[in-house]
C-alpha cells in the first residue's frame, strides 16, 4: 500500500467513524432547523459531502461537528434563498395522528404543536438563531460565529423571534378548538412538498 493510499484509508475510516457517531444528532439538528425530515437528511448529506472534501484540512478532523453544523446552517440559508418560491413543509405528517387522537385535550401539547408550526413561518435566518440558541444551547457569541454575523444581530434576531412567537401564541385562543387551522400539523394541510428535497441537485 502506498503512503497516499494509507492516508486515504485513514481519512475514510476517520470520516466513517464520525458519521456513525454524529449522524443521528446532525439529522435531529437539521430537523429542527428545517421542520422537514427529508430536508434534514438532504442537509446533512450536503454538509457531510462538503466536509468530506476538505476533511484533511479541518481544524478538528476527529470530531468537526462545529464545522458541519455551520455548513448545515449556511446551506439551509442558501437553499431557502434559491427555493423560496417552492412550497414549504409546515409540519410532519406523523404528528397528525397524535393531534387527532386525544392529544388536543392537552392544551400544552396543542400549544407545542402550534409553536412548532409557527417556527416554519419565521425567516430562515431568524429560525436558525433560535435553534442555535435554544436547541444547541450556543452562546450569543458562538451563534454569531456560526452565522457569520455580529452578536448584536443575534441579540436582535433572538428578541424579535421570541416576540413574534410569543405574540402568535397570545393571539391564538389557548383552547385547542380555537387554534387556527394552519396549526394543525400535516394531514390537515393541503399540498405539502419537501422544500429541501432538491437540495443536492441544486448544490450539484
Amino acid at each position: 500500500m502506498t503512503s497516499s493510499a494509507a492516508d486515504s484509508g485513514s481519512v475514510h475510516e476517520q470520516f466513517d467513524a464520525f458519521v456513525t457517531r454524529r449522524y443521528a444528532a446532525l439529522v435531529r439538528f437539521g430537523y429542527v432547523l428545517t421542520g422537514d425530515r427529508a430536508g434534514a437528511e438532504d442537509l446533512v448529506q450536503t454538509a457531510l459531502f462538503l466536509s468530506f472534501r476538505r476533511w484533511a484540512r479541518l481544524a478538528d478532523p476527529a470530531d468537526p461537528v462545529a464545522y458541519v453544523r455551520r455548513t448545515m446552517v449556511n446551506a439551509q440559508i442558501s437553499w431557502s434563498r434559491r427555493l423560496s418560491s417552492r412550497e414549504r413543509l409546515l409540519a410532519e405528517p406523523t404528528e397528525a395522528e397524535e393531534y387527532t387522537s386525544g392529544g388536543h385535550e392537552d392544551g400544552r401539547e396543542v400549544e407545542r404543536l402550534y409553536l412548532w408550526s409557527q417556527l416554519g413561518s419565521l425567516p430562515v435566518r431568524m429560525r436558525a438563531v433560535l435553534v442555535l440558541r435554544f436547541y444547541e444551547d450556543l452562546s450569543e457569541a458562538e451563534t454569531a460565529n456560526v452565522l457569520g454575523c455580529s452578536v448584536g444581530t443575534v441579540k436582535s434576531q433572538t428578541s424579535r423571534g421570541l416576540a413574534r412567537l410569543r405574540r402568535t401564541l397570545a393571539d391564538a385562543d389557548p383552547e385547542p378548538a380555537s387554534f387556527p387551522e394552519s396549526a394543525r400539523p400535516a394531514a390537515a394541510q393541503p399540498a405539502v412538498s419537501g422544500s429541501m428535497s432538491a437540495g443536492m441537485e441544486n448544490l450539484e
Partner: protein
Amino acid sequence: MSIQAQLRDTLFRAADELGRPEPPPTVRAMGMLVLSRRRRRRRAAALSAGLAAVLVAVAVPVGLSVLQSDGADERAAAPSRIPPADIFGAPPRGSLAADAAFVEAIRQLPWAWPDAGPGDGEMRLPDPPLETRSVVFAGDVTGGRWALVVGQNTAQPTGNAADGYLLTDIGALSDTAGAWFVGPPGAAPEQMLLATIPRGIPANLPASLHDAATGALVLVAAPDDVIEVSPRPEVAADGTVSRTFRDTNSTDGVAVIALDANPYQGGMPAPAYRVTRRGVEVIELNPDTYSDPDGEQPPGIALNYLRPPAYSLPEGAASGQEQRLAAEVLASFGLRAGQVGFDVHYVGAVPGVSGAAAELTVLSATFPSGAVRTTAFWLQSIPETPGVYGAGGFCTESITSVGVPAAQQVLAMRCDIGNDAREAPAPVSTLVVIAPVELGAATAAAQGGSDTGEVHLADGGVGMIEFPDGAQSVLIQAADGMVLDEVPIRSYSAGSIRVDPDNP
C-alpha cells in the same frame, strides 16, 4: 412557562420524535466518493447551461469550450461505460487528407495563441512538440477550409489545479491536446490560422467545430461511430423543447455538414450531435463554436418596445442587452429574425448591491409555434469603471405555452442581484412586477409568504419592492380593488448568483 422554555421544549420534543436515525451508505466515505464523481459530471453540464451569463462578465475567447464531456478522471472512474476508441490515432481524414504536402504543412503550423500571456499554470496552454503532432482532419467545408491537429498535452494541470473540482476545462487532464485551424476557401497552409485555444481533449470522445455564420459543422469521431445531428431545438406550442436527431451517414467517423447559416451568436449553439459506439451512446452535446473575428456584424433585430427604455448604466443604450438577448434566442434556437416576435417589456433600473447601478432587461420572444420565452437579465456595473460589469445574471428564463400574447402578459419575478466574489455583500432580492401599460394604476399583492408586500404599478405598469420572504405569487388588483389575475412569481434556479455553502 416562559416562551424560551416553551421553545426549548418544542424543539427537543420535535427532535425526539425522529428517534435515532441510522446513517445510510450514501453518507459514508464510499458514498461521498460516488457523489463526488457525479457532481463533477453535473458541474460540466451546469457550466454549459450557465455559459451565456458568464460571457457577459468575463471575456471568454471564442473557441474555449468546456463542453467536451468528461475528462481523464472520468475515464479512469468508469472505463467500461464508454467503449474505448482511439479517435485521434487514425490516419488523417477529410477531403484534403490525401494531400500529403498540405497535411504536413498543417502539422507544422505554430500553436501559439496570440492573446496568451507568459502563463502561470492556469493560463498555460498546450504546445505539443512537433514530433508528437498529427493531423486528424483536413478538409473543405462551407465557406472555408478546416483542420484539426492533435499532439501531446504539455499543459496538464498539477497540484491543486489538478483537482477535478477546480477544473473548468474537463479535458485538461488528458494526455492529448487539440487545436482547430481555419482558413478561407482554398487556403494555402500558411493562410490557416489557429482558430481555437489549444487544450486537452479526451482521446475517446469526438471533437467538433461549428461556425454559425456559414453553417459549417465538422464532427470527428472513431471510424465505426454512428454520428447523428440535430440542427436546432424545436419549441412546441405547449412550450416543450425537443430535438430530432438524424444519422449523418458519416464515413470513417467524420461528418462534414452544411447547416443553415445564422448571422447571430450567443448562448448555446443551436445544433447538437449524438455519437453512438457499438450500441452505446457516447455523448450528446452541442458542438464547439468558431466565429470569424473579421466577419460582418449582423443587422440589428427589430424589437417592439412596450414602454420607453430607461437605460440606467453609464453606457446607456450602448449596453444593448435587449439586442444581445434577442440575438441569443435566434442563435440558440436556430431561427431567422423574421420568425420570432420580440417584445421588450422593460429596460431600466433595478436595485443593485451597495447602491451600485444595476439594470434589468426583460424581453419576450414569441416562437413560430406561439410559445413565448421570457428572459429577464440584470447587469450591475462597477461605478469606477464604466463599461466593466461587476456581475450579471438572470431573474427568469422560462417558456410558456400559447395563450395570452406576450405584450398582454403580467410578469412577476424574483431578482437576486449580487456577485460571486467571496467577500461580496449579500444579494439584493427584489420582487419585480410588470403589467401591460393599459392596466393603469393597479397593485400587485404578494401571496404565500410570511411577509406581505404590495407593489404599486402606477409608473407605466412596473413596480418593485424588496422581495417579501416566501412570496410565491402576486394578486393583481385594479384601482377599484377588483381582482384581475393571480400570477406565479418566476425565478431562476441556476442563475449566476452562486451562494455556495462551501464558502460560507
